[in-house]
């Protein structure tokens, strides 16, 4: 009786796995076929003989209006966005949260509320005025303009605040008795304690940064700044305009766009899950 139940459980779990895996499997398998095959017989469930041709063309050959955009360039831009976003956010938020939790200062309360009000409204609802601010500052088509406005949300600051608050009081007391000032305490005690937390938040923020779509669309008119997640759609339009739509290339781009963040999450599974679950509290 017990055994039978477990078999049913496995069937349910495997169905779940297939439900999640099949779309990406089909995309990858189809991307290794010639465009004629896809057009003639539809998307494919098994691999073809065109893997190298498709992927080398997508990665290295230029397309777009300028003929200079390829997946390699877009992957590079996405990497800059993902890393710039996650590192920038961690740098800014660790010190801001430190000030909020460990210092008593007159304007502290007001500053706390201004910072945390940004948790309430996502970028999407103030997208047009944000665009105008960035345009007025002359930051369109720049990495600064791409990254900075995305950092303007206190999510990471909030996580670090929660974490610092859970650090035992006695640590600061004993550090003070030993003569440690604010700088010493932060660098020698608080930072070493936060390494796992920082790693976990870094993974999550990297994925969030890499996957940005709407903001890069608005910010970049220069193809040199295209990220892979938003660049696919433009290239898709172009591919569809051809006499022979090269769907294999479009699917290869989709696979390339999802591969890096998926690898990060799979390889650093434990930290990533810890980051998601711990930050909830």
């Amino acid at each position, binding site marked *: 009786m017990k055994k039978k139940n477990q078999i049913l459980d496995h069937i349910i779990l495997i169905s779940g796995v297939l439900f999640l895996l099949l779309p990406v499997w089909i995309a990858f398998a189809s991307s290794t076929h010639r465009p004629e095959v896809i057009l003639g017989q539809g998307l494919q469930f098994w691999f073809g003989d065109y893997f190298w041709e498709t992927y080398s063309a997508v990665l290295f050959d230029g397309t777009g209006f300028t003929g200079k955009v390829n997946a390699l360039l877009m992957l590079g831009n996405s990497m800059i966005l993902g890393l710039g976003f996650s590192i920038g956010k961690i740098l800014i938020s660790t010190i801001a949260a430190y000030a909020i939790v460990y210092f008593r200062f007159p304007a502290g309360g007001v500053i706390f509320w201004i910072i945390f009000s940004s948790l309430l409204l996502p970028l999407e609802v103030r997208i047009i005025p944000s665009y105008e601010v960035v345009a007025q500052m002359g930051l369109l088509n720049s990495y600064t303009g791409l990254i900075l406005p995305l950092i303007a949300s206190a999510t990471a600051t909030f996580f670090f605040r929660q974490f610092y608050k859970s650090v035992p009081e006695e640590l600061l007391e004993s550090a003070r008795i030993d003569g440690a000032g604010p700088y010493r305490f932060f660098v020698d005690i608080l930072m070493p304690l936060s390494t796992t937390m920082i790693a976990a938040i870094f993974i999550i923020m990297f994925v969030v940064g890499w996957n940005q779509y*709407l903001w890069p669309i608005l910010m970049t008119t220069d193809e040199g700044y295209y990220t892979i997640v938003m660049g696919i759609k433009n290239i898709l339009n172009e591919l569809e305009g051809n006499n022979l739509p090269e769907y294999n290339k479009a699917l290869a781009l989709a696979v390339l766009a999802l591969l890096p963040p998926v690898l990060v999450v799979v390889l650093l599974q434990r930290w990533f899950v810890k980051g998601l679950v711990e930050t909830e509290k």
Partner: protein
Amino acid sequence: MKRQQFQHPYLPYLLVAPQLAIILVFFVWPAAQAVYQSFRLEDPLMGIGEFVWFDNYASVFDDRQYVVSFVFTIVFSTLVAVSSMTIALLLAVKADGILHGESAYKVLLTWVYAVAPAVAGIVGTFLFTRNLGPLYNLLVSTGWTFNPQVNVFDASFTVILVSVWKQVSVNFIYFLAGLQSIPVAVREAAKIDCKSEFRRFWTITLPLLAPTGFFVLVINVTYAFFDTFGVIDTMTRGAPAGGTSTLVYKVYQDGFLGLDLGGSSAQSVILMILVLVLTAVQFRFLERKIQY
């Protein structure tokens, strides 16, 4: 806050300065601009504008398309949240009780978290492509005259399915963590008291999971409102006839593509109020109903 704190004349200000500067420039100022512009009628080409009080709001509510979008957003969010939470909860309960292969299942059920909604939308578009996509062929073989370009129901079906697919992993992670945080003693006691697995789930596991469930619900509503932009833009662009345009997508369409700054800003402000109300409900009303 800590009982023990540092005191310093300027160091704390220095530490919050970068965060505060970015928030003021890229959050507070644009949000204030949105409110200001929602009361103005601007001609972006001529560069002139005037103050029109609540005219923009009035025309937003007079716009039949806005009502369509409002209704779609509610239906869409409800279906996406309920479906992806149900699937994820079922998988989490099964993964929690499984004896063999738990860690493999965990990896295979969580990786979709890292897929961008826009990329999910592109892959989804291909799966639903006429004659080429396996899902299209599957649906047509059941006798469904599937035509998402014309039929709002069919188009909604495609964006909902892809949005659910994308969200199952996140929900799974939280539900599994919630289940595993139920103390072993409670589980053992429940097993002794109640033989039926199904009844045990309804009377013990589910109530204990309520705080997690509530948190996940909030995440899902936020996701359906905002993060599904990428899915909709890559799959339907709100078509046919605005039938799959969420409120956020309409802000973008009217403001950026339609250049109606006042109307779009008014929609932004309405969205802000909606989000604030949701947050208030989250803190006040629902949390009280859940037993901890």
